[in-house]
């Protein structure tokens, strides 16, 4: 087992944990955190591929990770504020009770 596949497996595990959280928890904040974890798993993949993959001098993986972190930060900020707004509207963060998008 190469060092790289270790990182990749770790990343897959992180992704699954995040997914599990996102799928099972009722609280919107935790769902958001789960999604963040999935993003982090992807970042870990990027870094790992950069470290062990070809052409590391191009810094592509690092760059991807940086941008991804930025996007994730933006996403977290917007997502949390949406949750706040929704909470103010419906006084809950429980996703089961938020079904106004029902078609």
């Amino acid at each position, binding site marked *: 087992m190469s060092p790289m596949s270790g990182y990749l497996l770790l990343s897959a595990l992180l992704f699954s944990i995040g*997914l599990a959280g*996102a*799928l099972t928890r009722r609280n919107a904040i935790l*769902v958001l955190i789960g999604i963040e974890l999935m993003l982090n798993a992807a970042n870990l993949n990027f870094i790992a591929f950069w470290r062990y993959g070809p052409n590391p001098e191009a810094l592509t993986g690092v760059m991807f990770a940086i941008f991804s972190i930025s996007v994730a930060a933006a996403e977290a900020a917007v997502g949390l504020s949406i949750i706040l707004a929704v909470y103010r509207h419906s006084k809950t963060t429980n*996703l*089961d009770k*938020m*079904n*106004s*998008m*029902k*078609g």
Partner: protein
Amino acid sequence: MNWIVQNLWLVPALPILAAGISALAKRKSRVLAASLAIGSMAISFLLSLWAFAHVLWLRNHGEASLQIFDFRWFQFGNQWLSLGWVLNPLTAVMLVMVTFVGLLIFIYSVGYMAHDENFTRFFCFLALFAGAMLGVVIANSLLLLFMCWEIVGLTSYLLIGFWYSNPKAAAAGKKAFIVTRIGDIPFFLGMVWLYGQSGTLLFYNGGAGCLEPSAINYLVAQTTTIGICAATGIALLIFCGAVGKSGQFPLHVWLPDAMEGPTPVSALIHAATMVAAGVFLVARVYPLMSAHAGIASVLTTSTALQAVTWVGSITALFGALIAVAQYDIKRILAYSTVSQLGYMMMGLGVGGVSVGMFHLITHAFFKSLLFLGAGSVIHGCSGEQDIRRMGGLGRLMPVTFATYAVGMLALCGFPLLFSGFWSKDEILHAAHTWNISQAPFYMGAFAALLTAFYMSRQVFYVFGGKSRLAEETADLSHSLASPDTTNHHGSSAPHESPAVMTIPLMILSVFALLLGFLGTPAWPWFQSFLEDTQAPLDFSAFSTGGMLPVMLSSSVIVLLGLTIGWWFYGRKPIESVDAPDNVGRLSPSIFSALGNALYFDAIYGATFVKLNTQLSKISDWLDRWVWNGAVQTVTQIVFGFAYLDNFLDTHVVNSGFDGGCQGVSRSGQILSLLQAGRIQRYLKIVAGALIVFTILLLWKAKI
């Protein structure tokens, strides 16, 4: 250069300055306006005398009697446009005449207009007129002449419409301006053409002027596309201006209407000076008028002068005919003026500058005398202008009667003593010896007969018999006099006018008597003065060149005319206001046609005025419907497409679309079952998809 030549501009400038000051003055400052106008005119008169004396002095010392002063006005391109003034015998004579007659009429106006509320304005306009007229006289440039000419027209317009509240006066002023402008437009074009051809508008400029031989020869050599030489074309166009201004047939229609203005205005502008400006213009550009293609044939008359002669003789006869059947004292004189102006034109055409100008000068004196006399009569009769309502004024207004009689005899050309005889005789004699046709002579002679007749008719109506003025009060339908005149001439019984009015009459009558002796055939001083020759006293001139027969026949004609007039109107006094005219009874239809001036106004109204109105309507219609319509049509077409598109959208596309939409919405209802609004369920689906895709990818990689 002599002081007076250099400063000749002062002559017109002073009255204009006076006009400018009184224009700014208040309405109440009557004395200021009158004294400014009269004072400036008096100074101008003195300056004119000086100028006249200077010309005489030059002649006596054998120097050139043509003095010019030019100055640069403005620059365009590489050349300067120069203006200037000219002092020659023609100028000098006109200057003295205009300032003298003008001065007398100004003084007279003080009395005549005494009660008018716009007294100040009147003198302002009058002074402006005098200045502009003097500008016409001294101008050494056709452009300057034209400019002053137009301002003269403006003042004429203002003064005819002086009693502006009267719609007739307002209309008459407008008519005068427009009809003269009809003549001025060709004049303008002729001037521009002349400028284009000769490169200068200065009359005399040391050999380079447009009236001097080199320019004239050049103009004669040019031929236009219609076959006449440029000189003739230009001369004819300029003559159009003279026709308009001098009330020549067929543009005479404004002059009788112009009598709506105050009587001094009629005397000054529409008898003595402005209307004579047309004659003066022809005299001024005479070298151009008489230029013809044949090099040395002095005897042949140029086309332009032939036109002048024919127009003049037709006008002379025409005006005299109409004057026979008029009842308004001023209209008779107006048509008489038309006729006499025709004489002058004829004189210019057949005899040359001196012949026409001599009549112009004498006419200026006796016709202004007649108008002022008529004004005195109107003033005395409280604004009455209809000769049928006058009568017997000879006893009531002796001074007016005496001076009027002098003027009337001068106008008729009563033999030997009166100025009109000599000047008219000159014209008839020249017409008699004209080499083209004898017709102008006969027309002129017949007009002379008619002149004697209608003047005696007028005098018998006005001064003879007993007063019929009392009947007026009973006649309520009468409304001939303008409201203003009626209001402003106070008292009711006929009375003699004040001295401020009668003294100018007397002075004028003296000149009407004596002026003729300056130009008798025996001692043609006036003619020689204008033509720059010497005039010895030579009584044998009467017997040469058929002079004596012409004089005799014209005397007979005049006496005959007076006799016929006496026969019809003087033999027994006119009975009443409503009595039909004694001549009119002979042939009422012809008489009424003449009374209506041969329906010229109606004819013009039905043709030119109507045409004009129609054209303006057409133009407006074009504007509204064709030009704008084209634009609107394009707009409508665009809108039409828009509507069509809209229609297709609603009824074709939309209905199909709606159908489609219903299908979509039904399937949407089914699909919406999937949309439970629960994110986590979606997430599960995504995860499932992820699983499937990863497996697929791996599978593919394996294979």
